């Protein structure tokens, strides 16, 4: 095993990645200027290969093999472990990927850096299966760049048999009688976003005063938290070590499969919704295969299989109809309380600082 060495001035790898990303944005020239990305262009004939850059296990086990068989295309599937890593890698000039999975918050920088191209949508007719809920979102208002893939809501997963009453809202995390039985997501945007909503503010706030309030509320809640922990908290919800957790609804659904007493609630003050998107890289070496794949995952059966495997919501109306126990679209009442995350731009540094202060408090 490689000896653990002192990290550079205490920087984590992820912080460094984010910093690199910011640095590149600041000094951004025309980096990966896309070639021809006119949305009505004609594509070359189908290539024999396709390179996908994605989270691990973010397709169904059969997705890739079935696509390979049907189209005669050999797929390479590479993985990253954070959106920051994905962005830093592309921006450092990694060539060769055709399709990349991008969280909504990362679409704006990808477009600004010229790292993604507009697909030629006439090759993706199955786009008509997409629910209008996931069209024209703030990070891609004209649906030029992104293909909605999977979505989730950030809310509270809780044990019906342990909590005295259903959680009314984010204030639950200030309840001292629940000390040690609560967790929040180990994710800057979600953990701070909750406390912005708590006071009726936007999860995309950049004003230092609003963020200072959120920091105060977050630190007050932190005294009651067992930990900041993301997906792995499912295990502790199932065993009952944690009674209520800030969590994504896809994970809550997975946990409920093992422990039926787990419920999921969208807090009264509101919360965030996020969407992962397939994007086409500029200079994708296999554009036609990439378009065919985008069209393929939007087939009803392929889309349903992906959601069955990941546990997250499908934005695909036709796929949703095929699922037995789907992650339902938010109700209109819930939708009114939900907000899409946006790129923070320059304020990312301030958010980073506040998040560090909260974690160090």
């Amino acid at each position: 095993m490689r000896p653990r060495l002192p990290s550079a001035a205490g920087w984590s790898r992820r912080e460094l990645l984010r910093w690199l990303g910011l640095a590149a944005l600041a000094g951004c020239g025309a980096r990966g200027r896309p070639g021809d990305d006119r949305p009505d262009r004609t594509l070359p004939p189908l290539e024999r290969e396709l390179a996908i850059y994605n989270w691990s296990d973010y397709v169904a086990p059969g997705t890739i093999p079935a696509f390979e068989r049907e189209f005669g295309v050999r797929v390479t599937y590479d993985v990253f472990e954070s959106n920051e890593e994905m962005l830093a890698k592309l921006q450092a000039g990694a060539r060769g990927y055709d399709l990349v999975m991008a969280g909504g918050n990362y679409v704006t920088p990808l477009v600004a850096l010229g790292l993604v191209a507009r697909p030629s949508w006439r090759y993706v007719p199955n786009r008509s299966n997409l629910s209008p809920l996931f069209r024209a979102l703030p990070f891609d208002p004209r649906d030029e760049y992104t293909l909605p893939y999977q979505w989730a809501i950030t809310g509270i997963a809780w044990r019906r048999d342990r909590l005295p009453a259903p959680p009314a809202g984010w204030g639950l995390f200030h309840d001292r009688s629940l000390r040690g039985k609560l967790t929040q997501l180990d994710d800057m945007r979600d953990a701070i976003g909750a406390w912005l909503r708590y006071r009726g503010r936007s999860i995309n706030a950049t004003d230092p005063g609003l963020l200072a309030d959120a920091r105060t509320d977050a630190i007050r809640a932190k005294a009651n938290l067992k930990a900041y922990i993301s997906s792995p908290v499912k295990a502790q919800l199932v065993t009952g070590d944690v009674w209520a957790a800030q969590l994504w609804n896809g994970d809550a659904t997975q946990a409920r499969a093992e422990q039926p007493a787990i419920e999921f609630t969208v807090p009264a003050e509101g919360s965030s919704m996020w969407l992962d998107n397939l994007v086409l890289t500029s200079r994708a070496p296999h554009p036609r295969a990439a378009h065919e794949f985008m069209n393929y995952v939007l087939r009803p059966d392929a889309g349903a299989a992906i959601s069955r495997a990941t546990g997250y919501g499908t934005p695909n109306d036709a796929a949703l109809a095929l699922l037995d126990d789907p992650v339902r679209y938010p109700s209109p009442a819930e939708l009114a309380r939900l907000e899409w995350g946006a790129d923070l731009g320059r304020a990312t540094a301030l958010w980073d600082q506040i998040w560090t202060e909260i974690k160090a408090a």
Partner: protein
Amino acid sequence: VTARVRPGLAAFVAVVYLLLHLPVAVLIAFSFNASRFSTAWTGFTLDWYRRLAEREDLLAATGRSLFVALSATAIATVIGTLLALALARHRIRGRRAVEALLYAPVVTPEVVAGVSLLMLFAFAGIPLGLGTVVLAHATFCLPFVVIVVLARLAGMDQSLEEAAMILGADELATFRRVTLPQLAPGVLAAALLAFTLSIDDFVITSFVAGPGSSTLPMLVYSMVRRNVDPTVNAISAILVVVTTVLVLAAGRLSPASLARRE
């Protein structure tokens, strides 16, 4: 010379070893746990190992990791051994500086090494892929090889080589028939060390990997971020066992332990 170990010291050592190895023991134990969520023990199963065999992505990544580790080990061992020989056997101007430069990468944080390699490849226009991963791994393994081989060389009797030369062997014959056989355990130990360093590297690899070059540690990292599934425990358990065996083998072949046996 053996001294009686004081009971207090023995207890202290026991605690240290417990803290060192308990997490790994727990990880391995839960790879046999029937529950999908790994904190509660619900019964013994080999399912996760069986599922591992069905996961083509894991098998492919394991294959890539082995390919990278073997290639990087071969490159680093050959170059590193030659470098160590040059440093030990020849008067080189600036030898101190060369040695200092060799140790620098050993103490450089991996993050920094990863970023600099990535920038170098981007600057030189080398497309990221398995090739860049092998190059990066060979680079960070190299100093470790040199250090291990140098240690072996320091313990070797040079008079045998001199005798061979006096008896008419040319440099190549001396190297092949006298130096190398004596050096072999050191070279092998260095190679094993390089292999274990390479097979589980994540940080540097994650920077320099490109299309078609996700290694096993990268896949495990990504899997853990999304979902902790006991297949991760299973693959980690296998990795721990393989690296442990290799480290033990390297230990047995290290110059120090050989010297003890002689």
